[in-house]
């Protein structure tokens, strides 16, 4: 596990940037190059990168990160309504407020570790979810969700003499955040978010977080107060979630409480583990896989399945459709659950571990071949000695 050199990291960064910016090109053969889906990749990518800073580095598994996603979304929509349709303040406030929430929830939850920590975060997130539906409806607009209204003040915009007729759309200093410009805004933020996470992974701070994951009590006898380290990681990852939440509002200025539900928290856990927790790229792979297949499979239904399997003889077609049907459309989550179990049981390091194993195969073969050759030589030498003797 020796560290990559700064040069290697620069190459990683360059490749990553190129890959993200050219995503509309190389994703077109698999039909994933439309802005809606691309935005989702980028936004959930940010969410998972942040989650990985907590879970991947410290091993503390939060089941409540959707709360910060929701806080980011609500804050961003309020920023659009009250201040400006410009996305910059929305993103900044969304990230900061989520950070404050993370500070409070993290401070309390980090008094425990292991499963108790996970349960505490889950409890706090469900509390936020329920509050959003009940007491806080003046702020969250309850079940309808918070959205833009014709009469919104947009104080900053008015100050600069911008008036709207009808429902305005979000913009970056006049550039509307719809279609590809929306994706590219998210993409640039994703690149920055990835860069920051790379710095954290390579820093002394990141090393200390890994050491906490490896042996927390030892850290205390080594002279570290581990609590503030964990809290800092928690707040950073909460801010990443808030950033992702506000970007969701940037691309679609509507915030609902379902964004804070435990299923949303579970999804980011799943994406991170599926891709490979603790690795830089893994969580992004997890996001890509899940969001892409969600897109395909949740759109299928019985009728489309019949079309897909039409080439089979009738009775096999009917049987196949009957088997596959529960896993598509609404049943996509069932499929996700099965996939998750398979990964955790057979490939606990996620896709990244799979890649590493495949990359190691040639070396393994070579080592085996070398061993066989040595054995053959040894046997030959023995035989020769026998013949002489």
């Amino acid at each position, binding site marked *: 596990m020796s560290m990559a050199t700064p040069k290697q990291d620069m190459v990683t960064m360059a490749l990553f940037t190129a890959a993200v910016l050219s995503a509309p090109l190389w994703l077109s053969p698999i039909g994933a190059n439309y802005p809606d889906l691309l935005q989702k990749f980028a936004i959930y990518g940010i969410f998972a990168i942040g989650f990985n800073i907590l879970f991947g580095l410290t091993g503390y598994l939060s089941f409540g990160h959707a709360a910060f996603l929701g806080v980011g979304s609500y804050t961003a929509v309020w920023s659009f309504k009250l201040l400006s349709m410009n996305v910059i303040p929305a993103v900044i406030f969304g990230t900061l407020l989520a950070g404050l929430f993370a500070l409070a929830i993290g401070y309390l939850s980090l008094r425990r570790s292991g499963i108790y920590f996970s349960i505490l975060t889950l409890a706090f997130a469900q509390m936020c979810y329920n509050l959003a539906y009940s007491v806080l409806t003046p702020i969250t607009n309850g079940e309808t969700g918070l959205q833009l209204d014709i009469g919104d003040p947009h104080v900053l915009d008015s100050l600069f003499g911008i008036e709207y007729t009808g429902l305005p759309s979000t913009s970056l200093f006049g550039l509307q955040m719809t279609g590809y410009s929306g994706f590219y805004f998210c993409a640039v933020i994703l690149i920055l978010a990835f860069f920051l996470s790379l710095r954290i992974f390579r820093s002394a701070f990141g090393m200390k977080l890994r050491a906490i994951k490896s*042996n927390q009590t030892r850290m205390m006898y080594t*002279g*570290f107060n581990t609590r503030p380290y964990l809290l800092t990681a928690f707040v950073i990852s909460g801010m990443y979630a808030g950033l992702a939440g506000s970007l969701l509002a940037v691309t679609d200025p509507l915030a609902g409480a379902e964004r804070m539900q435990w299923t949303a928290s579970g999804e980011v856990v799943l994406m991170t583990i599926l891709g490979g927790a603790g690795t830089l790229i893994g969580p992004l792979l997890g996001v890509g896989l899940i969001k892409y297949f969600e897109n395909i499979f949740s759109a299928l239904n019985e009728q489309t399945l019949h079309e897909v399997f039409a080439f089979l003889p009738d009775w096999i077609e009917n049987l196949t459709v009957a088997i596959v049907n529960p896993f598509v459309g609404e049943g996509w989550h069932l499929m996700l659950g099965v996939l998750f179990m398979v990964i955790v049981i057979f490939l606990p390091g996620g896709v990244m571990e799979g890649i590493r194993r495949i990359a190691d195969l040639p070396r393994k073969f070579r080592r085996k071949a070398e061993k066989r050759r040595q054995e053959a030589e040894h046997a030959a030498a023995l035989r020769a000695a026998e013949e002489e003797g």
Partner: protein
Amino acid sequence: MSDYILDIDKVDKTFGGLHALADINLKVEKGTVHAIIGPNGAGKSTLLNVCIGKLAPNSGTVNFDGQILTGMHPYQINKAGVVRVFQTPEIFPDLTILQNVMVPAFAKRDGTFTFNFWKSMSAERKIRQEAEHVLEDVGLAEQMHNHSGSMSRGDKRRLEIAMALVQHPKLLLLDEPTAGMSRHDTNRTIDLLKKIKERGMTKVIIEHDMHVVFSLADRISVLAQGRIIAEGTPDEIRGNPKVQEAYLGGAEL
């Protein structure tokens, strides 16, 4: 102002009905090596646990260099200059050997908390050099990029000694530092510990190996069933019949 850097004063510790430490008084002079010997279950490790804040005593205090350690957090005790090498190796098994030593070096430099998230580890040259230097001292420099989790017990212990030394403690507590080591590595460790004795670091060492004890210790305390039954110079202890009977079973010293 006494010359005693460590002053354990009337420490008592019970586990349920078991009196693990009974009225322990122990003073260690600055710059000396003080050995604690005694049979299994005598309470030796428990005494160190009390010193580093892992366990709170029922009564009594541990004074160190003008401070009262009792009641302080383990990380504060570390900051006061007391560092321990554990009986069962406590390392960071998921990190490399080098990283295992860099982490305590960071602790020494960064205090209890520093948010140094921007600077790359590869730019931390000074810390790295310190760590490499100490790894050379304990003889682990060649394999420093290896994973630490899969090392032998003896190697883990040497690594732990390196992790302690890189912090330049005022007081080093060693709990059976040579257990699980080969004769060769044991002698190496003795040499190493002698070398740091010359640098003036105070050490308390728990050891079963009498060869190690008598080649290092300035003073020896004998602990049996939670009580100190004898204390003195190595020669005094060697000749003490009570010790022979209680602990050494009349074995040749």
